[in-house]
């Protein structure tokens, strides 16, 4: 058997109890993440996409145990993360670091840039103060900041520079996995490109694996080796990037791709955009979560939950009707 991948996530759940009614007597469950499974190899980038509220950020935080998952298994380097005690988890945190969405709120305003980047080194007891300083200076250079800016406070930096700081902090303890929770969504488009390119370069330099959570398909397409599409807490399709964009198997993925604006005024849309709203994760539809909005839904979809099925060539989709009908429609559209 082949070596176990860097990260193996199996059936990860994160449920929140919700109380409703006047006295909170009605107990319901919000299924933010409702059983997702995927793997991530060393040095690979997995894009995790979906609409807001589909649970992609929650999934990222739950697998790092920044919020406690309700159930499921997360293995990093063959070590089960979910069962670790606080002390054991601390040791493993060095391996998995995070870059957050908002570069304004993710940096403590009272700490200098240098102190922020040095903090993980202190936490994991890496190096003495001179070595830490050298490491921070080196990281500043690698992410494109001047070492002279170490004494500055976060508010003295621009959004893009702050995100570079966040990246430097994530890289400081030498992780093998970096979870990017929409790391470029809050930035201007021109800055986004710079930061994405920086992430790609750093990945090569340090051999990092990225779990890249985003809603911008163009960015995900650029950076990812494989893409997982989430809908209402579940992964509906997982495929190599090229395959996913060329031959999406799940109707939801197809709808997402059709929503990408095409910069060509003569090209006409061949199909209606998705109808309706995303249903609430408190009371998700029966069977396939997507069936009320799906153009090809049948009775079976209303009743039976579709499993993530292997469609060959690394592609898998959670749809009873994949692959034949959706793949065919897609081809007639692009013709």
């Amino acid at each position: 058997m082949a070596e176990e991948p860097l990260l193996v996530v199996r059936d990860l759940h994160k449920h929140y109890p919700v109380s409703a009614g006047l006295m909170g007597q009605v107990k319901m469950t919000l299924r933010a993440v409702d059983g997702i499974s995927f793997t991530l190899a060393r040095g690979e980038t997995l894009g995790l996409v979906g609409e807001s509220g589909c649970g992609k950020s929650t999934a990222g935080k739950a697998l790092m145990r920044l919020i406690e998952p309700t159930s499921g298994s997360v293995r990093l380097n063959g070590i089960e993360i979910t069962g670790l005690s606080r002390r054991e988890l601390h040791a493993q945190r060095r391996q998995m670091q995070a870059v957050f969405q908002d570069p304004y709120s993710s940096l403590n305003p009272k700490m200098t840039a240098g102190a922020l980047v040095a903090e993980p080194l202190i936490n994991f007891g890496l190096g003495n103060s001179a070595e830490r300083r050298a490491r921070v200076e080196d990281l500043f250079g690698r992410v494109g900041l001047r070492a002279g800016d170490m004494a500055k406070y976060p508010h003295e930096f621009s959004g893009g520079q702050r995100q570079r700081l966040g990246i430097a902090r994530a890289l400081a303890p030498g992780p093998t996995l970096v979870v990017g929770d929409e790391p470029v969504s809050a930035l201007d488009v021109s800055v986004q490109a710079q930061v994405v390119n920086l992430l790609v370069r750093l990945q090569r330099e340090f051999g990092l694996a990225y779990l890249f959570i985003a809603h911008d398909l163009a960015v995900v397409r650029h950076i990812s080796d494989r893409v997982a599409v989430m809908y209402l807490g579940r992964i509906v399709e997982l495929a190599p990037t090229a395959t996913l964009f060329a031959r999406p198997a799940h109707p939801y993925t197809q709808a997402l791709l059709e929503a990408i604006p095409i910069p060509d005024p003569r090209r006409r849309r061949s199909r209606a955009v998705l109808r309706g709203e995303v249903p609430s994760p408190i009371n998700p539809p029966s069977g396939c979560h997507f069936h009320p909005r799906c153009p090809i839904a049948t009775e079976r979809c209303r009743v039976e939950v579709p499993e993530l099925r292997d469609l060959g060539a690394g592609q898998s989709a959670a749809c009873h009707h994949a692959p034949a009908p959706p793949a065919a429609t897609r081809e007639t559209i692009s013709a």
Partner: protein
Amino acid sequence: MSIATTRTRIVRPLVVRRRGLLTRHPRITLAALLLGTLAGLAIFAPFITEYDPMTLAVTQRLRPPSAAHWFGTDAYGRDTFSRTIYGGRISMQIGVSVAAMSVLIGVVVGMLGGAIRWLDPIVMRISDGLMSIPAILLAIALMSLTKASVATVIIAITIPEVPRVIRLVRSLVLTIREQTYMQAAIASGTRLPRLMLRHILPNVLTPLIVQATYICASAVLLEAYLGFLGAGTPTEVPSWGNIIAENRTFVQLATWNVMFPGVFLALMVLGVNMLGDGVRDLLDPRLAGRIGK
């Protein structure tokens, strides 16, 4: 070599900033001037006035302000100017001590309550209980249980102030706890003690310093109320409150005995409040940056 260059780079703007500080923050300057003068009068009282605040002079009773007695004299012939500036000692001592003590206790208890879930309801219910009693009533009750001295007045005023600080600190901690930078700090392996000291405390401190100045002002006032009600500092120790209280019977005959300590009291409270507002603007780095440009 690199250290030398950074040093010169840092020192120079600091000097420029310090010079600009006074003109850039006129409120702080004015408040500092006012409080400095009041504090100076109180500290150097023995060198400023030749009159002892306690010595009775029966022949000099209820004299209006004159060259000899700037603020006139009271019903026992004591010099009101001397009593007023000596009284400032007590008022300031009480204001500063109450502010320092209530903030210290409030920060420790409030941070523990905000950070440790099971402790929170206990701390909050006790504070709620304390807060439901009017501060002045609680202080009078505490004063009547013990003998009158400056220390007991300080304690009696501190106790009703503490729950207010606890509430403030707790609410700040709860807000800060939800900030992304807290999650980021946890993700980079920061443990609870460091989380509290490096991430929560500095972000609590700014609003707290401002709160401390308001507590200082209200403590000075509360001491005056207590003095006025006869539950404050012992009458032989002049404080602004008990000078006013003692002279209220003669207020129509000798307004000056009530007016001058009253004006000092008002100036001190004004100064402290102005300082609080100024410091609030100064300590917010985002605001400060904007003012600097």
